[in-house]
């Protein structure tokens, strides 16, 4: 397993290129399948709807988590310990 991973790491550009090809393949697959069983009108109308949904959802989640975390929610490790020490 270790050797396989190191082999792929040594050829990272090829791996990344393969991933992009796979993504393109998924998009093509999504375009050619029957979409009549989609739950929503958006899913039926737009072949790559879930590709866009997934990408946009991930960007929003990363953005919200970063904004929320850096607005004071993420704090130093000893935050509660410090308060305990002060109380003592």
């Amino acid at each position, binding site marked *: 397993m270790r050797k396989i991973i190191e082999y792929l790491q040594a050829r990272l550009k090829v791996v990344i290129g393969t991933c992009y090809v796979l*993504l393109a393949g998924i998009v093509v697959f999504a375009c050619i*399948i029957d979409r009549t069983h989609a739950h929503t009108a958006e899913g039926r109308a737009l072949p790559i*709807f879930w590709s866009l*949904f997934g990408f946009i959802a991930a960007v929003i989640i990363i953005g919200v988590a970063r904004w929320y975390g850096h607005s004071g929610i993420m704090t130093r490790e000893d935050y509660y310990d410090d308060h305990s020490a002060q109380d003592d």
Partner: protein
Amino acid sequence: MTSSFIHPALIMIVGALLIPFIRGPLRKPYLFLVPLLAFGAVISNSSLHGIFATYQFMDWRIVFGRIDKLSTVFAFIMAIMAMIGTLYGLHVDNAKEHMAAWFYVAGSFGAIYCGDYLSLFLFLEMMAFSSVFLIWFRRGEKSLDSGYRYILVHATGGVILLFGILLRYQAVGNMTFNLLDVHHPELYTWLIMIGFALNAAVVPMHFWLPDAYSQASFNGAVFLCAFTTKTAVYTLARACAGMDILVVLGVIMALYGVIYAIMENDIRKLLGWSIVSQVGYMVAGIGIGTELAIDGACAHAVVHILYKSLLFMGTGSVLYMTGKTKFTELGGLYKKMPGTMVFTIIGCLSISAAPFFAAYISKSMIITAGFESHLNWAAWLLMFGAAGTFLYNGLKLPYFLFFGKNNCSEETWAKAADPTWNMMMAMAAGSALCIIVGTFPGFLYRMLPYPVEYNPYTVYHLAETLQLMGFVALAFFLLKKYITPEDKICLDVDWFFRMGGRLFMWIASHPLQWFDTAWGEAYRAVGLRSLMTTSRFWSWFDWHGIDGVVDGFARSIRALGARVRILQSGQVQYSIYYAASFVAILLIAYVLSQLS
């Protein structure tokens, strides 16, 4: 007890009590055998249907064995989990830890099979008080505090549930644990729902879960991640199916857990947030309340136990071998822990609902039920949460733990290796089950409470999943620098409780202490003097007044006694003389009175 019904809780309790007496080479076979017997009992019970093992206690009918499809599917997965969890911790030498885990499992079996609120309450409390030891037995720096917070929260939840149960008994006159009238909720309906919801870690009553599970022992967390929240899901499915508010709460849980998991630096706390998020799907499914949604919630509970325990076993192995749980102290572990990495990635793919892995066959049932019930907003947001699940659990966790920058110290790196054979076997079993259930869902579907007509392996569902996963992965690799773990903790709603507690302590040690001191001084200066004056007066009054009266009376009696004593000479003739004189006086007085 009906002969055909065998309660697996009884097997686990008796088994737990005997553990300290089974020592040496017999211990490991014994640890394997007892959960196996409990599993056998569950299999045996699954052929039954109805009420068993009833007991009349005062006016209440206590039901220990209510068997239907809902209780059977939950008991089945709990029994499997008891075997896997015990196998994972087979080498743990601390008998008390095994006992705590088995009492915890027994509580879960008891809650699942019971048919009345009284025994349900007792079994839930048994779960709470036994599981806290799984946190304390880690003996970590913060485990004790986390355990106290855990038990405090669950005790509060227990009291709320008990209030609900008593109010319901007063209203309806029975203790039967069945579906509540969720469309016309009374106060007791809300209280019972809140009691269950707290155990299910429903936001905002969720904060105990990431806190406690991240501080539990490496194998304790494997039990914890499976039993409390899923038993709570069972109780919600039994009593609160179709309660609208649960849809809202479930969706909030699904998203809230995602955001916190993205920010989290501790690998096991990340999984704690993941539980909050995944249980959100189940809670939402129960809230939707249709047959497909309830089936979806139950199926998701079953597969969640499989993949979440697998993930906790993987991260527990990292903790067990390295002693570390933070991304900022780990990384690049594929070189040292390849077996653990493979099993953990199977868990990651399973929770991410990848095709042929566990959650693929369950999560979409709940989302489909949302669309079919015209709750599109809920279904959309749950899909949004599914994208987040793949982001933090399918990508962030394995990437930063096994492949990303190596943050290990020399000591950590030297310790890192795949764990003991039993831990590897337990992970292998969990992985196999995740793939089997995900690939061949028919067996699970047949066990669900309602007939299942859902087929997850449609071409559209496959394309939808591949698109979602592929493009979430693209976003992750483009933006991963923005979610690189930082050596920080995340404040949550427990801040209000912790700070509230500290405010109370500050008030006690500052204003109240000052007031107490001032009051003491004032009392000494003013109160004490007046008190001394008052006491001196009462002393004088006691001496001269009360004692004077009492002593004077006593002196008078004594003087009288001295005079009367003269009459008591002890000579018979004097006594006769006095008596005769007295009688004569009486006679004369009588005659005179008659004459007049």
